[in-house]
């Protein structure tokens, strides 16, 4: 009886997944993993002989496996709860928040980062008001030393000692672990008011309209959730509106016009793209209520997308430049540097992996 049960169970399980895989419709995208999934390969004699088709079949069988997300959950559960691993795919959970190990400190990357920014200063930013700040990643605020984290003291000291001619603004004391999403890498826009205040004080601009309306989107599953699909409650993504933000005009690098918040992105692969429509090399925000004021240029990463809308009230125009997508050597073809304020704002993860910033 037992042998029959084992035999039939084995055959049924294997056949069930085989048949389900054959008859079920292939998915195009995995929202959880934020990527397109492999499709059934096009078979040619050449691709067979080169083995390409079999490699694609392997990927296809993994990507289109029935209940793939549930199996990934089972794996993470096994790693954390049965094998008691500290992390799974470098992801760990602490107090219902998901973190990613960012380790070790890459001293070469720090050196490159500083060199790239010093060159940028020498080429374009001389005689301008240049400020910079370092956004700590959320591991900085971990309350335990059970995990491997960057040597933040070294990182901050190194950057401060080696970035020339720029004024440092320390924002690390105005953030805490709750300033970040539980399931995502990014900070929460609704927690950035203290940051706006400290920047405004140090950079001498004034925000008149700080009456924001909170708009919530739920459920927001951040990028870390895709790495470790476990039963952690989704975040609520909050974006702040007021009359200035609503009236602002956003001009993209392709000259298309949009608004600050792209609501179509809510519920897409990355809902955080609601802020300025996501990654882009170059974008301008114009304050339609304050046309004759100062201008600001922000050299930034994705953290800047949620911060910039809150700064627009203090400037007539903000230009955001993402050096991960545009080389500094091309900047004078798209922007004229004259008397703008400059804010350089990068998070520690980028600083520790600065090869992604273009030369």
């Amino acid at each position, binding site marked *: 009886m037992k042998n029959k049960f084992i035999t039939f169970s084995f055959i049924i*399980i*294997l056949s069930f997944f085989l048949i389900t895989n054959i008859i079920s419709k292939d998915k195009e995208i995995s929202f959880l993993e934020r990527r397109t999934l492999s499709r059934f390969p096009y078979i040619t004699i050449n691709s067979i002989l080169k083995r390409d088709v079999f490699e694609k079949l392997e990927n296809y069988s993994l990507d289109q*496996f029935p209940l793939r997300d549930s*199996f990934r959950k089972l*794996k993470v559960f096994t790693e954390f709860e049965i094998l008691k*691993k500290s992390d799974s795919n470098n992801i760990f959970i602490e107090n219902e928040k998901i973190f990613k190990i960012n380790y*070790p400190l890459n001293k070469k990357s720090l050196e490159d980062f500083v060199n790239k920014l010093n060159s940028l200063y020498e080429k374009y930013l001389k005689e301008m008001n240049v400020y910079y700040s370092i956004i700590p990643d959320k591991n900085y605020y971990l309350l335990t030393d059970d995990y491997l984290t960057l040597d933040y003291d070294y990182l901050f000291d190194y950057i401060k000692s080696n970035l020339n001619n720029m004024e440092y603004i320390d924002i690390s004391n105005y953030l805490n672990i709750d300033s970040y999403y539980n399931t995502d890498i990014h900070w929460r826009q609704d927690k950035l008011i203290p940051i706006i205040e400290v920047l405004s004080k140090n950079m001498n601009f004034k925000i008149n309209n700080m009456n924001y309306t909170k708009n919530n989107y739920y459920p927001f599953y951040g990028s870390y959730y895709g790495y470790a699909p476990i039963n952690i409650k989704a975040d609520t993504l909050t974006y702040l509106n007021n009359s200035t933000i609503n009236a602002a005009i956003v001009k993209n690098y392709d000259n298309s016009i949009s608004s600050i918040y792209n609501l179509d992105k809510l519920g897409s692969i990355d809902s955080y793209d609601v802020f300025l429509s996501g990654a882009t090399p170059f974008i301008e925000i114009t304050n339609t209520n304050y046309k004759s004021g100062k201008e600001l240029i922000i050299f930034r990463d994705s953290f800047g997308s949620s911060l910039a809308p809150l700064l627009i009230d203090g400037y007539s125009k903000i230009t955001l430049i993402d050096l991960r997508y545009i080389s500094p050597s091309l900047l004078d073809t798209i922007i004229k540097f004259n008397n703008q304020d400059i804010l350089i704002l990068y998070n520690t993860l980028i600083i520790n992996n600065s090869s992604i910033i273009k030369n």
Partner: protein
Amino acid sequence: MVFSSIFFLYYFLPIVIILYFIVPFKFKNSILFLSSMFFYFYGEPKYTLLLLLSSFINYSSALAIGKSINIKVKKNYLIIALIINLGILLYYKYSNFFIANINLLFNSNIKFLQIIMPVGISFFTFQAISYLIDVYRGDVEADKNFISFSTYLCLFPQLIAGPIVRYKTIHKELFNRKHSFELFALGVRRFVIGLSKKVLLANILGKFSNDLLNLNEMSSLSYWAIALAFSLQIYFDFSGYSDMAIGLGLIFGFKFLENFNYPFIASSITDFWRRWHISLSTLFRDYLYIPLGGNRVSKLKWIRNIFIVWFLTGFWHGASWNFIIWGLYFAIILFLEKLLLSNFLKKHKIFSHIYTISLVLISFVIFNGNSLKEILFYLKQMFIPSNIKLINKETIYYIKSYGRILLIAIISSTPLAKTYLNKLKNKKNINIMINFLEPLILILALLINTAFLIDDSFNPFLYFRF
């Protein structure tokens, strides 16, 4: 194709099982032969013809050897067949090694051959050699049926990573084998255990080694942990593969011999090699060491025999000096054990286990080393660390993170769990419960393995390179 892949488990295997069991017995070998060809073709499209050619040459050679009455002619056929087999192996596996060493020795500039070693060539070549010698010795009759012989040589459960199955072990089953729910269930059990060894232990231990190798700052402890993790990884990797092969064999009605018997509980290196990769060590014993005279010769010849066998055992594992050193390392230890240590080790049981484990760990540092310089560096950092800390935070983090898996792996490398389970089975009530739970545990294990395969990119079979 590897067993621990979704494509094998959920596409290839169910289709082959269903086809195999619905056709009449006379077509079962053909199904296995064709599926084995596809199995090989999937991984090595270009070399499938080579496998078929090897199959045909050995089939014909064995027939010629079997039919010859004249012993000299018989011997000549055998020698020709051995030269062809070893020639193919030497060409594909060792030619670039020889070229590199000739270039180094004579400062020459001979170009390397643009060839990739066919997967499993060491295994199917040695199977063929054992078959030819057995036919020559008259231990088995030459197989007259090309399909049944090729089914033996190319049978996908053991085709690319062993165990090395001798024709005489399964030749009766090739023509007449029984299928039953008992054998099938036994096969499933063994297959799932093997899959779990591979996916849940070997792969995770491999990640542990990798994490330690990529540490920002190594410590002496990290070198020890890498040696331990790699030793356990290669054991679970290879024995897991053997378990899966044995399990698949049982599903299709074949009974392969065991390839591992808890090698880490060995009380000497001699004992270790009775328990590790048994199909290879017995092959070298039966087809090389004993024909050379074994230990029933003068002391000098006996030493020669030991060194020849272990030089070749090392060299079989790979065309690289570290494998040769690895083999010779065992030759020296085995020689010393036979000459001086065996009685001492028998009397001091605890010491003998510590001695064996230590030497085995060192052996796998040699086995895993990319160069002599690297091997010596690793050993130095383990025993006389210089410019590194004994322990550091990073090493502790990873040892803590992988602590439970290490513990499970260490326990699983001993017969403790099996012995305990067998004791429990003696109690009637508990036995009923075990019988009830076993199928459920197997299903759960299969699903957990599937989960790890779906979400895992780290899945190398270490023994594929041999």
